């Protein structure tokens, strides 16, 4: 892997994150970290969704299912052995990677809207299972006691913010690497024409399974710290359809064919939602998403990235 400006920026962002969370370099109030965590979580989810939905053209409505399985994996690990976050994250990722692989095997023979419906159904089935599983609290939910403070960050939320920042950097870097690799070019061929891709030598089923696995992994990773963030998790919050809707809307608004799209979309829409939640009401969120989505689908189907390319005149 060649190092370039992207990696310099990514490293700078990580350092800045460390500076503000560990050394409290800037006077940032606690709410900013609290809200920032959610925005960064959406960067991971939108980036994960985009690997299948944007690069390959397979629309996954089951983001909430993966996110929740990631979160509940942490609950199980906590109940079993009080596992620390550093263990929860990779295990949740692995569980969701397997889930993605399984979903791929079951559903990838379906195309278009049938695939989308199957992913939604999967999320519903998973929610039903969790609701009926007493070990993780069933319908009433589960508490996790977390420390109020953690060295060297101080406030625990600042620590979680930093962790999610690193996960977001990891997810975006992975997506960017995939996009520029042979695999990414194969994904694009599948999106454009699956039969032509096969006849050009692309092993479409294998690539689709890679996509569902990687995408599932990243979604699970995003869900792993959730229980520590909220302290209490119940099926209706972890399986919330908002995750599915946002992780589709953000790449669409940002631009779905490139890694920058979900990043921009999540930062923008995620921030607007956080501000709206505080200043007006949380019900407004979905309305904002809806209006923006309609606007972009009609006026700028290639998202913000597409608009920028057009302005620069570099659009192909």
């Amino acid at each position: 892997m060649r190092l370039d400006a992207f990696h310099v920026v990514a490293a700078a962002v990580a350092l800045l994150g460390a500076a503000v969370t560990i050394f409290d370099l800037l006077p940032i109030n606690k709410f900013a970290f609290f809200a920032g965590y959610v925005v960064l979580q959406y960067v991971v989810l939108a980036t994960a969704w985009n690997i299948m939905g944007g690069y390959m053209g397979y629309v996954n409505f089951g983001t909430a299912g993966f996110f929740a399985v990631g979160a509940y994996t942490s609950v199980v690990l906590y109940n079993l052995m009080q596992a620390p976050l550093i263990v929860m994250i990779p295990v949740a990722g692995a569980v969701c990677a397997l889930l993605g692989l399984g979903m791929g095997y079951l559903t990838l023979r379906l195309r278009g809207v049938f695939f989308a419906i199957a992913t939604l159904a999967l999320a519903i089935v998973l929610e039903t299972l969790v609701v009926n599983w007493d070990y993780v609290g069933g319908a009433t939910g589960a508490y996790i006691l977390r420390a109020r403070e953690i060295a060297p960050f101080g406030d625990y939320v600042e620590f979680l913010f930093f962790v999610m920042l690193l996960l977001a950097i990891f997810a975006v870097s992975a997506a960017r690497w995939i996009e520029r690799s042979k695999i990414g070019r194969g994904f694009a061929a599948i999106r454009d024409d699956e039969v032509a891709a096969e006849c050009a030598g692309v092993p479409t089923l294998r690539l689709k399974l890679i996509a569902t696995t990687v995408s599932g992994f990243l979604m699970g990773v995003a869900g792993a710290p959730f229980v520590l963030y909220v302290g209490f998790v119940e099926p209706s919050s972890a399986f919330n359809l908002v995750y599915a809707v946002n992780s589709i809307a953000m790449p669409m608004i940002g631009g779905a064919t490139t890694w920058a799209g979900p990043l921009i979309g999540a930062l923008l829409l995620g921030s607007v939602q956080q501000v709206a939640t505080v200043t007006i009401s949380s019900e407004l969120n979905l309305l904002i998403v809806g209006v923006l989505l309609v606007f972009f689908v009609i006026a700028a189907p290639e998202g913000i990235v597409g608009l920028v390319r057009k302005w620069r005149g570099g659009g192909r």
Partner: protein
Amino acid sequence: MTRERLLDARAVTKRFGGFVALDEVSLDVEQGERFGMIGPNGSGKTTMINCISGTLANDGGGIVFKGAMLDGKKPHERTRLGIARSFQIPKPFRSMTVLENLAIPLEYASGAGPREVEERGMAILETIGLADRAGENSGKLTQIDMRKLELARAMATEPELLISDEAMAGLSSTEVDDILDILFRMNERGITIIMIEHIMRAVMRFSERIVVLDAGRKIAEGRPDEIVNDPEVERAYLGE
């Protein structure tokens, strides 16, 4: 001169529901041969190509390529074995430039590294006369250029057998000659070619041997001069 058998399709049958699109069609193509396939609209030519390239699974019979059974093999495996095809209705990778279209088969079928892609891709575009379109979006090409891109993408898989499904439809007569020229040259390099074409002048000039399909059955097979004088072929084309 005896040549080795490259493709051997035995009694291939394909049904769509109750409709029999291919009824025990057999054909064998020799290494290095220029082979023509003709027949009226809807006679099953494209369906036969789909069965050979693996985009459709045949319901009966079997297909052997270079001595190996193809049944059960995925299209991309057949491509890597050396079977390439063009699509009658062009299927460009629309989000990509013309050159990027070739990068897919170059990387996935002929094992080119990212650095060789441009050079080899441009060489193919040069041959097919699309070099000046290399950087253009493939979705915005004219129908004619899309057909050329179909051939170029098939060539980029480095095939041993190239199946061209009406690559010349809609081309002017000089363009038809250009494409014929390209196919002749590929054939001289040892590539076996199956040409499906409605332009009789082109198939007759190009092919060493021709099969004729009608309503899913093979009704004739032979040298071009035998085919033009075959009463059954005449009946199929002109009706009773």
